[in-house]
């Protein structure tokens, strides 16, 4: 696989902005992070992967083929072909050189219609962290409060809903981003992609990566090793993030020596200012729609307070959410998936408040990413 992609990198030169315009097989190398569960909802084992892949073949008409590497398979559909590396069976690394439109379309179909698969959800702060120490070549900012404003809200609320979208490519990435970060409107600055390069000046090897908030890395350059190194760093970091959320937050009363002790704690996501349209916000979060993918029923409702019993449609696991105009409290039930919390935070950042971030009770990987 590495040889194939190395050849691909040497044979094609692409600009990410025109990725959809290249002939089949001539676009950038794309690598995705997919978070997976086995068919009973647990973390998958290598042995359990056969059943998961069989299920995908059956439901989506993908063709799965084994390779010489026991933790690498190919999945093919139409013109799209993917290499699925499940060395870590919970966090797959999926590579493809197929054109971006069909590659993304088939993968979206696979992920969004499979309760046991999900993309990665990288907070804005983590994207900012991942470009540090690398040559910063550009960024995308996407913030739109419209999603959480209901159609029935007043014109005044619709007008107040902030939108801030911009794309920058060039060699002033660092300066421009720092300048935006210190501007008055910096609280609307939600990174949705970062572009950077990594190089080895001694050998002339380099790779340019564009990493987006759902864990997709597009690559061009001349070194597959540098690309795979960046992917490996990302997947390890993401696995650490999700496992931290699960270890810290999963709620359970555990029978101890002296009685039952509560493990885990509810997580509060604090907003920097009140939600514009509180009913619209609650309704959209529980709408079952992409991207939130949460199903819920309200069990208690007062003015400015709603409690809901919730199901994450990815992972089919239970949560409870308490909403107020100033915060959301997430109760992650034992055995539930940390990706549910990562997805909710990412969507809140994109559509409500990019400054919201994980504040856990003890220092974790999230603090390292924020402070670095």
């Amino acid at each position, binding site marked *: 696989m590495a040889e194939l992609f190395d050849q691909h990198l040497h044979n094609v030169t692409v600009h990410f902005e025109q990725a959809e315009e290249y002939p089949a097989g001539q676009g950038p190398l794309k690598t995705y992070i997919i978070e997976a569960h086995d*068919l*009973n*909802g647990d973390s998958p084992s290598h042995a359990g992967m056969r059943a998961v892949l069989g299920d995908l073949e059956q439901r989506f008409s993908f063709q799965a083929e084994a390779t010489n590497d026991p933790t690498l398979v190919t999945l093919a559909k139409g013109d799209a072909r993917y290499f699925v590396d499940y060395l870590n069976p919970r966090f797959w690394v999926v590579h493809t050189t197929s054109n971006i439109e069909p590659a993304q379309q088939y993968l979206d179909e696979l992920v*969004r*219609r499979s*309760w046991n698969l999900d993309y990665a959800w990288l907070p804005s702060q983590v994207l900012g962290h991942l470009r540090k120490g690398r040559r910063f070549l550009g960024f995308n900012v996407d913030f739109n409060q419209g999603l959480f404003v209901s159609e029935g809200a007043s014109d005044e609320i619709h007008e107040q809903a902030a939108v801030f979208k911009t794309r920058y490519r060039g060699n002033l990435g660092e300066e421009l981003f720092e300048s935006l970060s210190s501007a008055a409107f910096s609280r609307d600055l939600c990174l949705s992609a970062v572009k950077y390069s990594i190089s080895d000046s001694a050998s002339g090897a380099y790779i340019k990566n564009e990493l987006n908030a759902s864990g997709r890395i597009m690559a061009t350059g001349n070194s597959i090793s540098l690309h795979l190194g960046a992917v490996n760093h990302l997947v390890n970091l993401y696995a650490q993030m999700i496992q931290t959320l699960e270890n810290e937050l999963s*709620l*359970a*009363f555990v*029978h101890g*020596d*002296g*009685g*039952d*002790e*509560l493990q885990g*704690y*509810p997580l*509060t996501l604090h907003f920097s200012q009140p939600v514009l349209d509180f009913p619209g916000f609650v309704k959209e979060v*529980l*709408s*079952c*729609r992409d991207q939130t993918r949460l*199903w*819920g*029923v*309200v*069990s208690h409702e007062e003015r400015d*307070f709603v*409690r809901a*019993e*919730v*199901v994450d*449609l990815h992972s*089919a*696991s*239970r949560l*409870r959410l*308490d909403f*107020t105009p100033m915060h959301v*409290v997430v*109760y992650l*039930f*034992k*055995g539930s998936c940390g990706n549910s919390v990562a997805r909710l935070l990412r969507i809140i950042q994109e559509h409500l408040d990019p400054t919201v971030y994980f504040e856990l009770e003890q220092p974790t990987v999230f603090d390292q990413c924020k402070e670095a």
Partner: protein
Amino acid sequence: MAGIDHRILLPPASVVKPDVITLSRKSNCALLWECKSGGNLEVDQFDRYRQFLDFVTAKDIQRVTGIQFPDPETAHIQVAYCFLQEAIPRILEFFGSERRIPVVSLGQTTRSVAGDFHDVALNQAFRTGFTTPPIEQVPWLVVADAQTTDGELALYLLPTVVTLIVKQTERASINDLLSQTFLDWQCISLETRGALREKATRVLKDVCEAEFKEHVRYCKPEERHHDATLQVVSELMGQEASAQTRGLQKLAEQVKSAAKRLDEGRPYSPPLPAAEQSSFPFPPSG
């Protein structure tokens, strides 16, 4: 927290049932909490607790509830009452000189207003008082007890049934559903668990034969099995994306209407087909 709703016999035949039992391993002491809004102090109950403290030991509590003290020989037990602040002036007269039963007032500040806790540090903390967190910041971890209504139970349990539908799990027992729904299931007394299981079985049977009929089938306990099961028959997750989303949204509406119906004690009446919903599908002409 060491237990919820444990019924404790006070020989020969009276019973107390503290709402919550908490245990401090450090001080080898358990607190048996009665939590009340203050509308009514049950004088009989208060008298039973006073007798209880004369007769019941930590070892008795360990045997009856399964709570394990670090050293049962030297362990203490204590009863504490918690009331809303507005009820305090009215109820304090009942406590009179009974210093063994501390009374905690719950208002903007939480503090003890009568009696003493054995644990010196705890006593000092409650005497000084602390700011009560706003209700929306109090974690909602213990959600069901023997008084939980059928409708409330449906609101908690049916989302767990939805996880089965999404996962296409073939079958699950009512016991599994309860333990996945209530985080504190293992802390709840056997008696309350039994009452909740019975209520859950009734609620789930009803909803599976009504609102959830297309999705889940209720199966009676088989021979040698005590527990009824639910079998998923739903085809919802096989549908295309937008139909799936609509179906899931409809399920949420059905959960709400089932909860309301159960609390009102109404039988299920299926929605009328669209054509029959209005006798005037078009505005009358002329």
